[in-house]
């Protein structure tokens, strides 16, 4: 069978998914959690509890601060100890609600049983409201509020829901594990979103380096028998999990610059998001847990894990539980090695979308000294957006904002393929990022 992929650019880093076979483990509760009010894209949520309040797990502790915002729930039961600024992974102060853990009592109405609920509700507005109330956000990286994305303007029509199970970043295995261990729930989540979008087609897209996940989802789709749903294996290529590239791979359609996926009839949701939608709608469970990979090239096999964590546990708590920071770790990344954020503060709290703790050795993450461009064109070959990073780099150095815009610098998706490929170690993406900021200001 012909396997799909996106045609333009892309790179093939070693997949290094060492934690592939580590089954999901549930982390024990820490003595205290710090719940960030900024766990999503958009306006920060506004705390609605006071110091000293008793809260239960799954209870709302902060309400949306705007149209593009999301509810935040307590991941534990306990007492609110403080509300105030605390440093996030980049070291920036963000309002956190500190909760001292007492027992593990969940709010009423939340169904924690493992029984599958496969019946799809039919009231679209009620389902959207449930997704919103559960604080579900996109878990593929952008943490965009899901209820907004599932509610496209009435004049546009969703033709295809794509469930992103590509997990194209090296090292990461959390999506893989939920696809293998909880395929039924993902498939029901997909069917719910299908209903919300008006009964469009649904494609579960998984890269072919995860054959077990493809098999598990296929079996689940066959067993549950929802109409108009299929599993599509994709040929491995980074950045396949990027929304634009994934739509191109599955549907062969390219969105125009600046246009939303719905303009070509597509809605993309991550596999983890599908699971969160399932739990929100069928189990009334808000998004307070997620799976995170602890991995890295300088970790030995038994220290790699896929953990079910509660959003608010600190990274250092998880790292400690997993066996501590390896001695030869030179860089710690929250996420994959291509797009993950560097962790400047390991004491930072996890959020709903925390993807991984990745330890990279000096060897793996070394960037050579910048040399002169030899015009080899590898950056342009690698760019999945068809941009010319060598040219953007030159224009950025010259500060020519107009020319940068003409050459579509704002279309850069910051996937990192250019810098990954550059034999002269020119910090192409670093300069392009700066140029984008300047170009947006004009």
């Amino acid at each position: 069978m012909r396997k799909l992929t996106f045609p333009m650019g892309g790179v093939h880093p070693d997949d290094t998914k060492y934690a592939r076979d580590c089954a999901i483990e549930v982390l024990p509760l820490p003595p205290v959690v710090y719940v960030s009010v900024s766990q999503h894209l958009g306006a920060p949520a506004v705390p609605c509890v006071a110091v000293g309040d008793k809260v239960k797990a799954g209870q709302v502790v902060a309400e949306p601060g705007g149209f593009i915002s999301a509810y935040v729930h307590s991941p534990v039961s306990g007492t609110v100890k403080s509300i105030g600024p605390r440093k996030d992974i980049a070291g920036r102060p963000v309002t956190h609600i500190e909760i001292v853990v007492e027992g593990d009592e969940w709010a009423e109405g939340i169904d924690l049983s493992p029984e599958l609920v496969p019946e799809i509700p039919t009231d679209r507005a009620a389902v959207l409201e449930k997704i919103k109330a559960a604080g579900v956000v996109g878990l593929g990286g952008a943490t965009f509020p899901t209820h907004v994305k599932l509610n496209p303007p009435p004049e546009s029509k969703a033709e295809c829901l794509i469930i992103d199970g590509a997990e194209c970043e090296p090292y990461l295995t959390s999506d893989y594990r939920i696809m293998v261990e909880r395929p039924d729930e993902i498939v029901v989540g997909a069917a719910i979103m299908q209903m919300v979008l008006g009964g469009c087609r649904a494609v579960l897209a998984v890269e072919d380096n995860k054959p077990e996940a493809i098999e598990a989802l296929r079996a689940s789709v066959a067993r549950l028998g929802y109409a108009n749903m299929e599993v599509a294996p994709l040929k491995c290529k980074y950045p396949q999990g990027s929304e634009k590239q994934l739509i191109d791979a599955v549907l062969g359609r390219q969105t125009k610059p600046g246009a939303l996926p719905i303009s070509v009839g597509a809605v993309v949701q991550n596999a983890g998001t599908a699971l969160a939608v399932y739990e929100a709608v069928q189990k009334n469970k808000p998004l307070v847990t997620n799976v995170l990979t602890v991995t890295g090239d300088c970790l030995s096999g038994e220290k790699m894990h896929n953990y079910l964590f509660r959003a608010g546990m600190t990274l250092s708590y998880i790292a400690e539980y997993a066996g501590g920071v390896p001695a030869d770790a030179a860089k710690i990344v929250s996420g994959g090695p291509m797009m993950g954020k560097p962790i400047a503060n390991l004491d930072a709290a996890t959020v709903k979308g925390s993807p991984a703790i990745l330890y990279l050795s000096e060897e793996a993450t070394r960037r050579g000294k910048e040399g002169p461009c030899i015009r080899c064109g590898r950056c342009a070959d690698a760019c999945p957006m068809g941009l010319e990073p060598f040219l953007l780099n030159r224009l950025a150095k010259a500060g020519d904002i107009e020319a940068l815009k003409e050459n579509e610098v704002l279309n850069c998706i910051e996937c990192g393929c250019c810098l990954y490929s550059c034999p002269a170690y020119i910090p192409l993406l670093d300069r392009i990022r700066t140029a984008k900021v300047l170009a947006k200001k004009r």
Partner: protein
Amino acid sequence: MDKFLVSHPPHIHASRTTASLMRDVIIALLPATAVAVVFYGWSMLLVLAVSIVSCVLLEWAICKWLMKRPFDCPEAAGVTGLLLALNLPYTTPWWVVLIGAVFAIGVAKMTFGGLGQNVFNPAIAARVFLLISFPAYMTHWEIPQGLFGADAVTGSTVLSLVSENGTAAIDSLAEMGWHPLFAYVGGSAGEISILALLAGFAYLLLRRVVKIWIPLAIFVTVAAISGIFHAIDPVTYTGPVFNLLSGGLVLGACFMATDYVTSPMSVPGGLIFGFGIGLLVMLIRYFGAYPEGTSFAILFMNMTVPLLDRWFHQPKFGRD
């Protein structure tokens, strides 16, 4: 928390460096170099040694004392030295080779700003400079002696024989045992074995060091033009097979026209670049004063690269 590196993604690299790409080019040229050494013997080794050593040392010296900046990539200077040697007859005196190296690195490369900045392919520029300055040495071909060979015999290149005597010369060469795919007498050292050159080029393609478009455009253009002319007048004009396999065409198309720095970045730009080289090669061979035109053709098309890069870009996402 201990000290950890904090920097923007991507956090990993394909670990393909400028030096490793240049090493691949050197590896790709090794078969042709080996054949040249076996056929031409010790004097070939001398040409190679003088060319490579002087290119590398000169660039190092210019970086250190004139430009006061790091010597970025000795491998790239080595490639220039190797290509220059393969573009000379093995009989070239050492001091002529030295002058060529000085021109290649000192004039064609470093005056433009060094690695990545030069307009002309340094080895080609030096070859043309020597061809004009020392025509006697540069067109003096001797029948090779081999590494431990006997006495040398002076001869002509195939192309100059044809230039003087018409296509009939090809038959007499064939009688002498000349075979275009393996090796033939006379010519620049690197032209001796087409098979070795193609093997090296296949390696470059497999390792994804270069793309096939530029050489392909050159070969197709040369084959098409010579095919048409040969069909019209087979006595005056040589045919496609002969034109593809003789002279420096394969060496030039596969290793000089594909030089990153002096060729267009986009695929359409590369196709036009290759077409231009093929066209100029055939114009010079058929109607020019020189029997061989690959160097001139590449040098001329090098000048068009900034324009081709300005006019042709790769297609952008969502723009068709």
